[in-house]
């Protein structure tokens, strides 16, 4: 798969994005709107604090019992008539989906929105094997037409504005004349998709929560396309990561409150689908077969580390990226891999390896805006710092590609820094020298060069606070 060959180039892609005023305006406007909507939902700090603590506890409890819950989930799904497939790698997941489709003789697939199928590049795999998969979520449909990847995990085409979509539709949808009228554009997509729904042999979807206790797949959406994709065709295949399991049906309600409010500022989504079985005898609709493909793809390794396992609490609401000052300015495609924003910066290096995506944990000022809004309290800045540590730790076993960020210059640089700041004598001497000569350092020196491109050169003070405190008689002890 193409996925394995990819390497993150955050700085290079950020350079392109930062110099694209239209892209920056699109993201800024969209993220401002999303932040305002979320803030309006959580205007009661006490309710927010209590609810997110509950959400975090539910996810933490599910992860603490993950192996057991996955077994219970499989048993209960099987009892309900849903077939479970385990996939360790994207290749295994793709093969499982293809196998099910082939067995059913399915050629045409309609898809509901699913980030895990983006992660495994399912559409490309199906296409290569003679099966057409059409995205039915409006945003996904738009980027599929454009031949692009999602730039946001909830709103995949958020990087595009109305005019760009109008141009795309006129170009790609047969018989479509150019219009910027949003209702007309939606109608055009609806019309094109309706036929695809009608002739689909199978529907493929993601999963928001898989309930172990009851064997229920919970799927939320706003367009009704998710319900159509999972009920209209005779075959439904759901694909999700192993971490999406929750223990009890009772656990779903708080998460269903946190997720849409954090994501789009909605009290609840228009559709909440709870799938418990294929069509039963005597029932008039619903798919005849339902399958669930459970993907690992490195998640077990994330799970094995007690601190990094918090990454798996994520419920994919995207609040972290909506509030991220870096994401807002560079957009989702800068992150190269499937998951952008703060959650991507901690998840991608763990799934793909620090040797492929080691620059991502560093593409953050550690401002903490993400952790502040995370509905399940993932300590994202701490995990970014942890991944930075794994990147420079010799022979780190915790994360794939650990230690790949080590360099002689980095090691020596920090050794020098440590020598200076852990010795009061050496520090005193250095700060005195800097006070005397520091301002003579030319602006073209490394670091100072980067700094002074948009800022004036900082000026060393003639006397340090240490000196001033001594002279003014401040006590030393």
């Amino acid at each position: 798969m193409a996925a394995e060959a990819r390497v993150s180039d955050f700085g290079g892609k950020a350079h392109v994005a930062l110099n694209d005023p239209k892209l920056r305006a699109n993201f800024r406007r969209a993220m401002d709107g999303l932040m305002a909507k979320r803030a309006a939902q959580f205007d009661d700090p006490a309710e927010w604090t209590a609810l997110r603590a509950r959400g975090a506890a539910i996810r933490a409890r599910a992860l603490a019992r993950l192996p057991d819950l996955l077994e219970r989930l499989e048993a209960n799904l099987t009892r309900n008539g849903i077939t479970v497939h385990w996939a360790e790698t994207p290749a295994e997941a793709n093969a499982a989906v293809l196998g099910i489709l082939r067995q059913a003789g399915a050629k045409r697939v309609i898809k509901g929105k699913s980030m895990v199928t983006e992660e495994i590049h399912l559409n490309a795999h199906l296409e290569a094997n003679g099966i057409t998969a059409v995205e039915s979520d409006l945003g996904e449909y738009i980027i599929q037409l454009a031949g692009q990847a999602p730039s946001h995990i909830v709103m995949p085409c958020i990087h595009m504005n109305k005019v760009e979509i109008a141009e795309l539709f006129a170009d790609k949808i047969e018989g479509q004349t150019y219009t910027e009228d949003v209702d007309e554009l939606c109608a055009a997509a609806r019309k094109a998709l309706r036929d695809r729904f009608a002739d689909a042999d199978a529907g493929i979807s993601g999963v928001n929560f898989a309930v172990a206790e009851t064997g229920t797949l919970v799927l939320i959406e706003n367009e009704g396309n998710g319900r159509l994709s999972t009920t209209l065709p005779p075959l439904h295949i759901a694909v999700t990561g192993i971490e999406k399991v929750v223990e009890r049906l009772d656990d779903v309600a708080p998460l269903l409150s946190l997720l849409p409010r954090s994501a789009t500022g909605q009290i609840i989504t228009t559709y909440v689908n709870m799938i418990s079985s294929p069509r039963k005898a005597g029932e008039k609709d619903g798919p005849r077969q339902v399958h669930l493909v459970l993907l690992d793809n490195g998640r077990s390794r994330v799970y094995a580390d007690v601190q990094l396992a918090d990454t798996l609490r994520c419920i994919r609401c995207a609040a972290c990226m909506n509030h991220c000052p870096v994401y807002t300015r560079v957009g989702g495609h800068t992150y190269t891999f499937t998951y952008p924003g703060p959650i991507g910066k901690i998840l991608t290096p763990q799934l793909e390896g620090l040797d492929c995506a080691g620059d991502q944990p560093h593409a953050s000022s550690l401002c903490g805006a993400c952790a502040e809004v995370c509905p399940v309290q993932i300590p994202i800045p701490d995990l970014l710092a942890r991944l930075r540590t794994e990147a420079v730790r010799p022979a780190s076993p915790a994360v794939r590609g650990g230690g790949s960020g080590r360099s002689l210059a980095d090691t020596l640089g920090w050794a020098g820094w440590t020598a200076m700041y852990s010795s009061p004598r050496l520090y005193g001497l250095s700060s005195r020298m800097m006070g005397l000569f520091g301002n003579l350092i030319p602006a073209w020196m490394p670091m100072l060069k980067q700094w002074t491109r948009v800022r004036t050169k900082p000026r060393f003070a003639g006397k340090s606070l240490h000196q001033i405190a001594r002279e003014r008689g401040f006590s030393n002890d």
Partner: protein
Amino acid sequence: MPASGRPHTVYFFGTCLIDMFYPEAGLAGMELLKREGLKVVFPQKQTCCGQPARNNGHQDEARAVARLQLDAFPGDWPIVVPSGSCAGMMKVHYPELFENDPDHARAVAFSERVFELTEFLVDVLGVRLVDRGRPVTVTWHPSCHSQREAGVVEQPKALLRQLANVTLVENPREKECCGFGGTFSVKQPEISAAMVADKVASIEATGASQVVSGDCGCLMNITGAAAKSRKAFTGTHIAEFLLERCHGR
């Protein structure tokens, strides 16, 4: 701290950035404490909180530097820090930095004695300031670690609002990072540049003649970018600003 809640002596941790670049801000912080009748102790052994190494993944190096600070502040007096970022590092990250280390208990006790300057002035001392300065309009810039790690949000604004001739205008984008982030500013220089340009524009749009902040890292970034693009506003550390107002300068 004595049971009464008001100590007679405090330690002052100047921070490495203030030490070398903004000593007048550190001195103002010490003067503000002194004029409240406190004895201010400035241990000459102090250097840096260790945050740069910690944030770059060099835990051992950060711990070595942090351990020197544990040694430099041996008494049980409060440690007042004129930076939300360094205070956040020492409050929040010292205990985890010394996990499974013989000095863990000492690090925890240290972290519990750390106060950001405005937090200490408001919550512990309950200072009342008398404004002797001329009318001025300012806006506040909170550092990310001040608001999100040290938990200092309202205290600096409460102090600014005590000043009769100071008009505090809110920046609608106040909470957004200025793009400093320590080494982030040179490791991702273009993203940092975009962030500080937006921050500068948002401050300019408030119409304030000064931006006041409790963190010199942010100030170095914001005022550096403002000066380079020839903006009219200046930046001041809150300690210096408060002291100048009280002296009528």
